[in-house]
């Protein structure tokens, strides 16, 4: 895009807030009762977090399936109709699904035991927030229940829950963090341009996870040095 620096966020918004939230409503109605499956998968992840390491690869498998579903079911089938950039979002979400499969499900490197319980607790808290509290935010700001973000079926909750899982592991997993963090910026910018009250949630969460990831990397290096 030429002279891109002269564009404001609102210049780049292709749709009205009304259209955006209506998209969620129509999408949720079209996939019902898949939302229940998403919630069940979220609860399954909570249970798997407490299980032995061998079973933890299932966490990655579930997350990868959710990312793949959001890529196809939400971005490609629905969001792309009002935002041509959603085709690229679909590609990014599919790539993240493959990365989760490779790192977590195949190599089982996602959930190595932690030496610092702070990261684990923070990560699990973030995951539970995405699973339970994030769906309540839009109704709290006066929007309808059919417009909510839900783990496994819509992007923001799925991304935030994944960031929680990545945060709870020992490693920073920079490769796996890139796409979720980019999405935090994209969705934050979209909601900000629409003047939505929840606009800062995802960028703030993304910034916190980024900070934790740096801290975790630094702690890990120091631990290695000190033996």
């Amino acid at each position: 895009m030429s002279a891109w620096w002269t564009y404001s966020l609102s210049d780049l918004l292709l749709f009205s807030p009304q259209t955006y939230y209506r998209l969620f409503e129509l999408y949720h109605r079209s996939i019902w009762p898949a939302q229940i499956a998403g919630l069940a998968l979220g609860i399954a992840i909570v249970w798997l977090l407490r299980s032995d390491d061998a079973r933890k690869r299932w966490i990655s498998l579930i997350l990868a399936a959710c990312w793949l579903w959001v890529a196809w079911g939400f971005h490609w089938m629905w969001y792309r109709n009002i935002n041509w950039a959603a085709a690229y979002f679909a590609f990014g979400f599919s790539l993240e699904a493959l990365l989760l499969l490779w790192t977590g499900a195949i190599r089982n490197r996602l959930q190595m035991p932690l030496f610092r319980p702070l990261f684990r607790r923070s990560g699990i808290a973030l995951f539970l927030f995405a699973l339970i509290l994030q769906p309540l935010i839009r109704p709290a700001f006066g929007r309808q229940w059919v417009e909510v973000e839900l783990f496994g079926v819509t992007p923001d909750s799925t991304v935030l829950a994944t960031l929680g899982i990545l945060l709870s592991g020992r490693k920073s997993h920079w490769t796996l963090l890139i796409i979720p963090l980019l999405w935090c910026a994209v969705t934050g910018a979209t909601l900000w341009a629409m003047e939505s009250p929840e606009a800062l949630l995802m960028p703030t969460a993304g910034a916190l996870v980024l900070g934790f990831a740096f801290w975790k990397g630094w702690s890990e290096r120091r631990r290695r040095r000190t033996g």
Partner: protein
Amino acid sequence: MSFSSNNTPSFDRDVKRPFPITRREFLSWMAATGTSMLLPFSGFGAPQEKSIHTRPIPSTGERLPAIGLGSWITFNVGFDPVARDTCVRVMDQFFKSGGRMIDSSPMYGSSQEVIGYGLEKLNRTSRVFSADKVWTAFDSEGPSQIDESRKEWNLPHFDLLQVHNLLSWESHLKTLFARKEAGRLGYVGITTSHGRRHEDFERIMRTRPLDFVQITYNVVDREAEKRLLPLAEDRGMAVIINRPFRQSELIDFVQRHPLPEWASDIDCENWAQILLKFILSHPAVTCAIPATRQVNHVVENMGALHGRLPDEKFRKRIIAHVESL
């Protein structure tokens, strides 16, 4: 207070009409010759249309109603059946008010598809003046994108195609001129908005035989008055005006203030008509394309097609008033 002298009604001319004379011209002729007295009632045929402001396209002389319909954001409603039907009602009111030009772009999400849906539902494919754009950074994608757009509109050919925001303009203009030469396109143009790249825009206007240019111009964004609008007049190019209300920012702002007493002097009943008549009264302007998803807004906007237009002195008064708010 004075007004422009060129307020004589001009009549919309549909080049695709099946008969050599329009109903309106026929009725005018009857009125002039007194034969209308032979009619059993005054409401002969469809309801009488008032005369509306039209402007000629300099390259052919074809006349267009001076208010068109934009589709940026407003028509990008995706699969939503309720919103789609709202858009159809907007289009219906637009056509009933005498409108013809609808403008869109492949950049506008589902807008083209929604316009196509509306045209088919309203059976208005012969009435519309279709103005679309080519918008891709890849030269080779231009022709296929145009064909995709045409399918979305459900039309055999476009009346006007413009290079959107000058993106890859050299190669796309070649494609568009070739299509025009082959009789598969009526007019060729280029667009910009928000006052961007005016120097490049001017250079292209000076060197290419364009039929149309599309730029931003309104009572607060008047950069185009300096060079682009006079140049369009000199070069015989029709001018489409986007962002007449700065999306909704300008209209939302002025509507917080009472309608000036002098509004009736230019036959305006609301702020939308004042803002649009300011634009239409510039001699270089062919058509302004406000976008909306509300039928009552279409009625307000299309009201600017009627009545007196401000002259130069009055235009300055409008500017001063808006700047004082």
